[in-house]
């Protein structure tokens, strides 16, 4: 077990990073699969999308594909190093997913006006639910990450 703690502590950052990447990729996937393809709430392109929105949308789409695959390979790498720490990883997952959702719900939907969550309905309740859920995920993720960081220091102190 001691080697496990040591390698976990050595790869604190990589655990966090792989969680963040997969969290972001997961949320982007849900967004595409559920809201675009199944519910048709979001639009591929709506006429109010400005050029800056297209750029932001494109970069996030490419990055979310990349981060999903890269995150999965990082987890495999941690496992072969016996350094995967699911708790810390999950903290990262919540930060990545919640952070992206909050950014999407505030900056991309409201500021850049890429698209709205739904059309032809009163949008405010949807926006509030979306962003509050995102904020809860983000805060929970941050708490877990701080706590695992402290735990790791304590482990190292006793080792």
């Amino acid at each position, binding site marked *: 077990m001691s080697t496990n703690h040591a390698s976990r502590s050595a790869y604190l950052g990589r655990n966090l990073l792989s969680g963040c990447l997969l969290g972001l990729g997961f949320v982007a996937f849900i967004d595409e699969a559920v809201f675009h393809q199944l519910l048709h709430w979001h639009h591929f392109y709506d006429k109010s*999308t400005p050029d800056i929105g297209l750029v932001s949308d494109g970069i996030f789409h490419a990055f979310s594909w990349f981060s999903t695959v890269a995150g999965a390979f990082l987890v495999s*790498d941690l496992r072969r190093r016996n350094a995967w720490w699911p708790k810390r990883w999950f903290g990262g997952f919540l930060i990545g997913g919640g952070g992206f959702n909050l950014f999407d719900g505030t900056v991309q939907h409201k500021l850049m006006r890429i698209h709205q969550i739904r059309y032809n309905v009163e949008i405010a309740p949807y926006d509030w639910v979306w962003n509050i859920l995102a904020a809860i995920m983000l805060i929970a993720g941050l708490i877990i990450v701080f706590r695992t960081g402290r735990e790791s220091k304590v482990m190292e102190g006793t080792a």
Partner: protein
Amino acid sequence: MNHNHVHHASELPNELLLALPFVLAILIYLLLGLVSNQCHKQWPIYRYIFWVSGVLSAAVALIGPIADTAHINFTAHMVGHLFLGMLAPLLLVHAAPMTLLMRTLSVGHARKLSRVLKSFPVRIYCHPVVASILNIGGLWVLYTTELYSAMQHHVLLHMVVHFHVFLAGYLYTISIIYIDLTAHRYSFSLRAIVLILSLAAHGILSKYIYAYPPGGVPIEQAHMGGMIMYYGGDIIEICLIFLFCQQWYKAARPRTSVSISH
């Protein structure tokens, strides 16, 4: 290139002539494989399969029903371009044609070829940044200027554009994932950044085409074509990303544990 029924008699020899380069490409590769097998270990069967399917997927864009429809239909044009610019290069790179050529040539000739591959111009073209600008930048020029409608009216321009799309796609693929011989290698982080930005530029262009159809393209065809470019591109891009990350995974293998396990 007038696809009229009046010209039906002259069409068949035309198609055969267009098919000739593809047939030659397959035959030459097979020949190189068989010749080099004489003094090296067997060239793997899967590489032949990659080569043949790569050549066929390029051919789909240039001869046959999709190519014919592409002259009048933007959706078909986009399907052809996915085959020519993305799928064909990915398959052909896996056939490792340069490695095969190197092992077939005599030592003297192989040295000359490797000098060419290491030369300044080749290295510039194979740089990830340059290759992706040629690839994605070329597509932006094609679909946001008059070039697209011009190419539908000039046979020579039509051929040049297709050749560029294929070649730029191939250069881009070999600059990002290293399967074949590569003269100069760049870091994973540089290639990851270039990969993400070029995929983003591809996605942005797809939606841009949806919003602002290229000259002479009806709006419904632009919508369909843009979505094919976006989602079809996604499928090939996820393969590229997977291969890229897999190469990182292999390269980052921890080596210290080997000495412990007897």
